[in-house]
Structures are given as C-alpha cells and as structure tokens.
C-alpha cells in the first residue's frame, strides 16, 4: 500500500515537472506578455525595464531553474499583472469555485435522484421515457450554450415579457458574508440569487449522469430477493423504495460524485466565464489570454496535485470498501 502511494506521488511529481516546463516554455511562443502590459507607444528603454523587473530578460532555462528553485521553497512567483503572489491570487478565488461546485452538486442530486429512481421504477411510462430523453439532452447540450440560454430566458426575456417577474442576476457573485475568513455567497439572499443560474448550468450535466445511473441501479436492485422479501412482508412501497432500494443506489452515486467533483471544477471554467463568476476557473482563462505565466503555472501545479490526490483517494477508498481490489498488482 505504502509503496503504491509513494509510486503515485512520484508519478505526480514527474507530471508536474513536465507540465510546468511545457507551459513555461510554450506560453511565450504565442505572444509577448510585456507587450500586453504596457502601452504600445512606450519606448524601448521602458520596455526593457519592465522586462528586467519581471526577470524576463534572462534566458528561458535560467528563468525555469529560478522558478523551480523558488517553487520548492513554496514561492510560485508573482502575477505579472496583479503583482500579488500567484498562489495567493488562486486561493482567494478558490472558495467561489468550490461554492459553485458544491451548490450545483446539491441541485443535481435533488433533481436527478428522484427522476432517476422514478424512471427505474416505471421504465415503460411516458414520464420515464421523457426523463431518459431529457437526460440525453442534458449530456449533449454544450454547457456554455445552456448557460447563455438560461441568461436569455431568466435575465432578459421573461422579466421583459412578464411584468413583476424577478430579473435573475446573470453576472458576479452578489453580496457575500465572511465565514471563518472566507467570503461566501451561499448565506445571503442576494448571493444565492446570483448563484442560482450558474449552479443550474453546471448541474445539468451531472444531473443527467445521476439520472441515468440511478435508473440503471434501480433496475438492477428491484428484482433482487431482499426487495421481494420486503414486499412479501407487506412493507409500504414508500419504505421499500425510500429505504431499501435507495440505500443501494447511493453507493454508485457517491462514487461517481466523488469522481465527478474534479470534472465539475474543470467545467467551472466555462460556467464562470459565461456568468462572470469570479472563481479560479475564470482566473485561469484570463491569465491564459493575458499570458500571465506565473498564475497559469501555479494553477497547473495546484490542479495536478488536486487531481492526483482525488484519484488516489478514490482508489484507496475502493480498496478499503472492496478487499478484492488489489492496488499493487495491476490486473491485466
């Protein structure tokens, strides 16, 4: 087990080195960050001064070595544009993203689970067929377009057409409160309203996944003996479905939700861009477009660690839950 974990962590370190070197070298091939920062009619001397102040006058390999040296000491450089440490910048934005992902998971579960169970219980009904077709739409429709359409309907069309219809906010975070030093929108009415549309957009894909998973598991569980026994005992249908069936459905749902958490963080880049949600995904995109290398590289390091830890946790959990899964020897 320990060998396995160590091997995985070494792998992660290798990925980090390769990715950081790649981005480090590559990002300046597209454009010159200095040209983006100062006005085009600045003199060459000013330009060189800016370049030197950012350490960009040195050869690339020297810049990279300096970065690695600082990084192992916990310093990932300062953002070219904001002047703040890149890590600090990302960690400031992180709660907004996590909040969005969390809220969208709640929505996806609250909508997807009942619909999936219903479709599993009555697979032939019109309702079930509608739900299943709808779930294909949820899979297929591009996330960003759904976001745009939600804005169009709830922030533009409906309030325009129906007087008194609340105009849902389509950008920003709204009012936030400080909880243990972290700014959150989740606990103010205004913040929740701002959260609604982006979270719905993000929840669509995950909800569709949960619907299909819940239906498949329900169909698998229903013909089992213990369900038949519960029926024979005369338990109410509500109790059978609500307790006995649901318990078994929750296992795969929990697993997939764990795995999908990472996907949601990645997808949040899109949702945050559409809704101008000030999370770390939007920060990444802005930094890429403005060639703010320290932020991109720092984000990359965080995301590699994040996904490696997430995958490792899932694998370890599997081996704990199911002793048949052996980690060391990969089955071929």
């Amino acid at each position, binding site marked *: 087990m320990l060998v396995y974990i160590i091997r995985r962590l070494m792998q992660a370190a290798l990925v980090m080195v390769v*990715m950081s070197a790649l981005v480090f070298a590559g990002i300046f091939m597209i454009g010159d960050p200095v040209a983006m920062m100062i006005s085009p009619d600045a003199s060459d001397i000013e330009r060189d001064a800016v370049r030197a102040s950012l350490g960009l006058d040195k050869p690339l390999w020297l810049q990279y070595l300096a970065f690695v040296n600082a990084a192992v000491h916990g310093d990932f450089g300062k953002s070219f544009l904001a002047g703040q440490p890149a890590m600090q910048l990302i960690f400031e934005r992180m709660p907004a993203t996590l909040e969005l992902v969390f809220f969208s998971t709640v929505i996806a579960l609250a909508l997807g689970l009942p619909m999936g169970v219903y479709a599993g219980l009555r697979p032939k009904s019109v309702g079930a067929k509608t739900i299943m077709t709808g779930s294909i739409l949820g899979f297929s*429709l591009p996330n960003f377009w759904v976001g745009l*359409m939600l804005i169009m309907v709830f922030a533009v069309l409906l309030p325009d057409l129906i007087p008194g219809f609340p105009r849902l906010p389509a950008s920003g975070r709204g009012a936030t409160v400080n909880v243990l030093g972290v700014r959150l929108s989740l606990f103010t009415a205004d913040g929740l309203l701002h959260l609604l549309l982006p979270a719905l957009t993000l929840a669509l894909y995950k909800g569709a996944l949960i619907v299909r998973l819940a239906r498949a598991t329900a169909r698998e569980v229903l013909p089992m003996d213990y369900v038949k026994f519960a029926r024979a005992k005369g338990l109410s249908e509500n109790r059978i479905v609500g307790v006995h069936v649901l318990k078994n459905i929750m296992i795969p749902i929990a697993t997939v939700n764990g795995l999908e958490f990472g996907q949601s963080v*990645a997808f949040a*880049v899109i949702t945050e861009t559409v809704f101008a949600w000030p999370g770390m995904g939007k920060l990444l995109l802005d930094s890429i477009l403005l060639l703010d290398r320290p932020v991109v590289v720092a984000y990359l390091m965080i995301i590699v660690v994040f996904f490696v830890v997430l995958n490792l946790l899932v694998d370890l959990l599997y081996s704990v839950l199911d002793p048949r899964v052996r980690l060391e020897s990969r089955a*071929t």
Partner: protein
Amino acid sequence: MSETSLVAPKPQTPFQRVVSDFCEDKLAVFGLVLVALALFVAIFAPWISPQNPFDIGSLDLLDAKAPPGSVSGDGKLTYWLGTDGQARDMMSAIFYGMRTSLFVGFVSVVAALGIGVVVGLVAAYAGGRTDALLMRIVDIMLSFPAILVALILLSVLGKGIDKVLIALILVQWAYFARAARSAALVERNKEYVEAAACLALPPSRIVFRHMLPNCLPSLIVIATITLARAIALEATLSFLGVGVPVTEPSLGMLISNGFEFLMSGSYWISFFPGIALAIAIVGINLAGDHLRDVLNPRNLR
C-alpha cells in the same frame, strides 16, 4: 419475425442485421436523420448558403443585428435567421460554421482512433513492460479532465484550426488506446490468434489483419460518442477564445460572438448556432446510444 411465408427467411449478413436492428428504434433513426441533416449542410454549405459570410465586401453594415425574417436593405435577401453584429446572414454563417465544427470533430476523432488503436493493440500484444509503460501514460492522460488539458495545451500552442486539432487528438487518443487494449486482450487468447501465430505470421500481420477487425465494432461505438464530445469540446474552446480563429468561425465561435448582444435582446445571434450545434451533437448521441446496443454481442438474439 414478421414474415409468414413457409420459406425460411434468407440468412442476414451481419451488416443487414445491424441495419435492421438499428431501424427498430425510432429515436435512433431520428438521431440519424439529424446527423444526415447536419452533414448535408456542412458538405454543401458553399452552394446552399444565401450569402458568402466570409466575403466582407458583400456585407452591408446597415443590416447589422437584423431580427429573423427581416429583408436586407437592397431587398434581395431575406435573413430568415437574422444577422449578426457585422450584418452577416446567420443562416449562411451557421452552414459554414457547421462545416468547420464537423470537420474538426471528424478529423480529430479519426486521428485519435488511429493512434489509440495502434497503441492499444501494441500494448495488448506485447504485454509486459511495454504494456505497463503505455498504460501508465494512458492512466495519467485520463486522470485529467479533457477540457482542462485542451485549454492548457492551447494556451501553449496558440489559435488555429490545426492547433485545435492537435489538442483534441492529444486529449482523445487515450480513450481509444484503453478501449482497444481491453478489446484486444480478449481477442489475444482466442484460438484464431494462436493459429495465426502457429503459421509463423509476423506479429504486425496478426495484430492488424486478424485482431484489429474483431476489435473494431466496440471502437466504432466509442468513436461516435467521442465525435459528439469532440464537437462540443471544440465549440467550448472556441467559445472560451482559445479555439478556431475569427476568420474561420465554428459554431462555438458564432455563439460566442452573439454573447455580447444577448443582454440587449438580440437573442438570435447566439440562439440559432446553438440549436445547430445541439442538432449535430444530440443526433450523434441518439444514434450512437442505440448503435451501442445493436453492436453489443450480448444483445444478439
């Protein structure tokens, strides 16, 4: 069987069986119709578009942001789907955009399929260290979300259709490699492979002429689903501003262009390209979903 004649029905070729099974599901046929529609529009865009959206000279800025159904200033053209901020006819732009989107999707999936199949089959046939190394790389590739990897790659590569293709191929080949390997592992232990090996055929011939055809059906199913994902991914990247260049707008780019006009009520600039994109993706998914059931050997009757 619906035939009531006494003559035994003609044995079907596998292909006929797939076709007739596929047509049983109305939703899947509907999906195929959508795909055909998207393909038709994409292939014949230059001939059926009312206007060449790339010819800046033919655009009249007075017609900018015309709502759907309005007539152009010179009375020659009706903008059935409206115009965008540069007075481009949306219908023509969508036809051309579909062309770009489908092209990028098809080419990237075919290339990724090719690379993935070679890697997967080689890993399965060679086994041992080669297998372990290749699958480790696949594991690492698959442990990161495709959208994020593509985004980072494009931040390094820059804009352009070729760059988008590279990024899409790089994030997709691993799926095919893993699927091809697991399909090939099943095939490798079958007698015909053993027989071929006994004939002292070269490994490359055994792998590509004997094992590959038997692995293909499951890979084709994955390819259809991946195609839908590739089209959506390209649209997303273009929307985020790291995808195709402005000169060759894909559907995602068109939607992105309409974003700024959305708040002022000009919904059609974003709405209709999105519908076109949805038609293509939903069509492929509906058809692919059923194709998986049809090609699944477990469902053979």
